[in-house]
């Protein structure tokens, strides 16, 4: 097992743990403006993903990410299934040559692009996109402009995602189930943006370890 592959497998496991811990919190967020299943969707999907990647014979980063994505696609359903799962699958080829600063940026950009292709959401629609856009932008700029190490850049990206999550609170939703609430969606934090943040926090945690 490559070190890099091992790290990605560990990251998926860490994400699975974290989302199990946050399960009821995410479901509570989804109760307020959705249908009360986001915690279950994430916990179930990532637990299966962690199992699946643990069984890979040759866990190179690309294979691990692709397997995780495919598992999410077939385990989660809902809106978050194709968004998380499909985007991981389609962005995984960016890691073909391993984890570098460059490939990480490419991966992040493709991932965001795929989420937006599938879901057609823009910043300010009160979705996971609101956490992703600032995170990806910050990550790319930190690496490419500020010449930061990937781990330091990731740390900045996590802080940026947090801003994005906070930003979902005071705005009205235009995508996802929360959009049905119209103005009543204002004042609530988006569950998908929140789970995106948690996932990034775990990536950072594994990367710094």
């Amino acid at each position, binding site marked *: 097992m490559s070190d890099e592959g091992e790290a990605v497998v560990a990251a998926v496991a860490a994400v699975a743990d974290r989302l199990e811990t946050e399960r*009821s919190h995410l*479901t*509570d967020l989804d*109760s*307020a*403006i*959705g*249908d*009360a*299943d986001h*915690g*279950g*969707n994430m916990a*179930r999907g990532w637990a299966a993903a962690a199992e699946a990647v643990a069984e890979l014979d040759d866990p190179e980063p690309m294979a691990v990410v692709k397997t995780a994505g495919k598992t999410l*696609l*077939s*385990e*989660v*359903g*809902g*809106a*978050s*299934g*194709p*968004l998380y799962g*499909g985007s991981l699958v389609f962005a995984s080829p960016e890691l073909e040559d391993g984890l570098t600063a460059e490939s990480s940026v490419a991966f992040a950009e493709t991932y965001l692009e795929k989420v937006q292709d*599938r*879901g057609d959401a823009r910043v300010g629609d009160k979705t996971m996109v609101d956490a992703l856009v600032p995170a990806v932008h910050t990550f790319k700029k930190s690496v490419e402009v500020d010449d930061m190490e990937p781990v330091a850049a990731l740390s900045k990206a996590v802080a940026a995602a947090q801003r994005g999550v906070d930003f979902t609170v005071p705005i*009205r939703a*235009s*995508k*996802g*189930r929360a*959009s*049905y*609430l*119209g103005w*009543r969606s204002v004042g609530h934090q988006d569950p998908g943006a929140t789970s995106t943040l948690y996932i990034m926090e775990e990536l950072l945690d594994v990367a710094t370890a």
Partner: protein
Amino acid sequence: MKKLINDPDDVVDEMLDGMVAAYPDQVRRLPDTKVLVRDDAPVDGKVGIVSGGGSGHEPTHAGYLGEGMLDGAAAGEVFTSPTADELEELVGAADSGEGVLMVIKNYEGDVMNFETAGEMVEMEGTDVAQVVVDDDVAVEDSLYTSGRRGVCGTILVHKAAGAKAAEGADLDEVQRVAQKVIDNVGTMGMALTSCITPEKGEATFDLPEDEIELGIGIHGEPGVERTDVMSADEITEELTQNVLEDLDLDDGQEVMTIVNGMGGTPQMELFVVNRKLQQILGDHGLETWDAWVGDYMTSLDMEGCSITVCAVDEELKELLGAPAETPALTVK
């Protein structure tokens, strides 16, 4: 939460087995999936009709499997769209070579998963068409929403498309009549209480004793507006008025109606609503051709109802009145 449930993680699986045990001659389960198909699927020479979505809306979807309606139904987790790979199996099992119509209820989750599945089976040579039902008039169809939701009107889409397919029509024709229902149907719902999902184990939203939610969907999501509690007649007025404004029908138009229970409301109350609904329609110069009352598309144990009105012409009357034989709906 006190429910007739063993483990929330098993509830969908056990429900599906319980359905097969109830209707062993009518439905079967595809091995290792949450997909149920009619026992004789794929039906030779017939366009397949499939539907699916989250669980918790029973008898939707598998309750409508059978002659004159659906060939296959995919069950997701509670209130969660089925996954794309299950939908792929669903479409495959319904295809006899004449193609398959996917009836999708408008919501990003369903649409994205169905479309992914559709693209995959098309690559293997199956003809696939889709319609997206968006009958919920409570949600405005605008840039600021993900579009109107698909709710109880979907049952009528299943019925009309199923009848057309049973006649031996081709995929285009079946899709056309499905779309025709969609173009002529409107629904609005309300909740007296929140539902309780097995996952969360408590009410999805708090609804005080003196308030109700108008414009709810079928996923236990809060409604469009919260108001003070009203009488059955006032609620019926409010829902019907919104549906009729949306449909904008001509005087003398024939309609078919559904008073749909959300799962926890006793039939007694649904009939009280139907009484008022029919009075209002009469006052508007509309003619009721057929009126259904019951639990057709539910939100687990939620108390409340939705009202569906569908304008019908000769073609739709023939299709909606055609024979159907399914666990949840029999038309003679």
